[in-house]
């Protein structure tokens, strides 16, 4: 089994952290993982993205020819990556911002108004964690408890209280899809 996921969005939306948290939790679950950010530090603006591969064997290439999942946090991300997704793959869309929809009939779409949900929680910055809640549930790559532990480890050095907020945000996402 090998699963490749692309996370993509504006610079400030925390997409790299989404990828790292997935990679970290998958590592803790015992999988082989790679995390590959597309890098733009010498260039201001533009979109940020990263690719995470999770597998039960050595991962040959961290580059995704045909990713299984795309998490698109803004419209340019959708346009850039929608044609790379493997047939039968899933696109997670930040529908608070992205009004467009993919033009491919062979991929599933999961729209998540994660910014709105975040605003409801009183913290627009956790939209990415909410999205992760949805993604972790839907993809089933790692159990939620392992993911939450990783999230805490990663955020560890930062202030207290944050953990609580993140947990709530994750739960909101995890519970968003009732199916």
């Amino acid at each position, binding site marked *: 089994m090998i699963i490749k996921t692309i996370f993509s969005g*504006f610079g400030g939306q925390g997409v790299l952290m989404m990828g790292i948290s997935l990679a970290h939790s998958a590592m803790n679950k015992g999988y082989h993982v790679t995390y590959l950010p597309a890098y733009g530090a010498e260039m201001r*603006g533009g979109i940020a993205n990263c690719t995470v591969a999770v597998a039960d064997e050595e991962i040959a290439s961290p580059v995704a020819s045909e990713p299984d999942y795309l998490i698109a946090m*803004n419209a340019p991300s959708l346009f850039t990556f929608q044609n790379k997704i493997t047939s039968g793959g899933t696109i997670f869309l930040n529908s608070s*911002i992205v009004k467009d929809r993919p033009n491919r009939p062979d991929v599933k779409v999961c729209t998540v108004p994660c910014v709105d949900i975040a605003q409801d929680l009183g913290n627009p910055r956790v939209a990415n964690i909410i999205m992760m809640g949805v993604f972790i549930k839907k993809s089933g790559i790692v159990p939620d408890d392992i993911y939450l532990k990783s999230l805490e480890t990663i955020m560890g050095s930062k202030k207290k209280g944050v953990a609580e907020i993140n947990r709530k945000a994750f739960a909101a996402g995890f519970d968003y899809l009732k199916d």
Partner: protein
Amino acid sequence: MKGSIKIDKELCKECHLCINVCPQGHIIPTKEYNAQGYHPVGTNNEKECTGCALCATICPDIAIEVYRE
């Protein structure tokens, strides 16, 4: 003096420096998004613009044109 400004919302990067320098409070934040992903500023028509051009002078992105009558 009576003036007016024209904000190019696509250029604005939400830095709010204009808001900070406008002596009239004529410029305000908005909730819209532009293609760059920023919330461009808008004008508050309740406060009058004098055309002093302080906002345009500090606007890093030349998003503001200033007119005077």
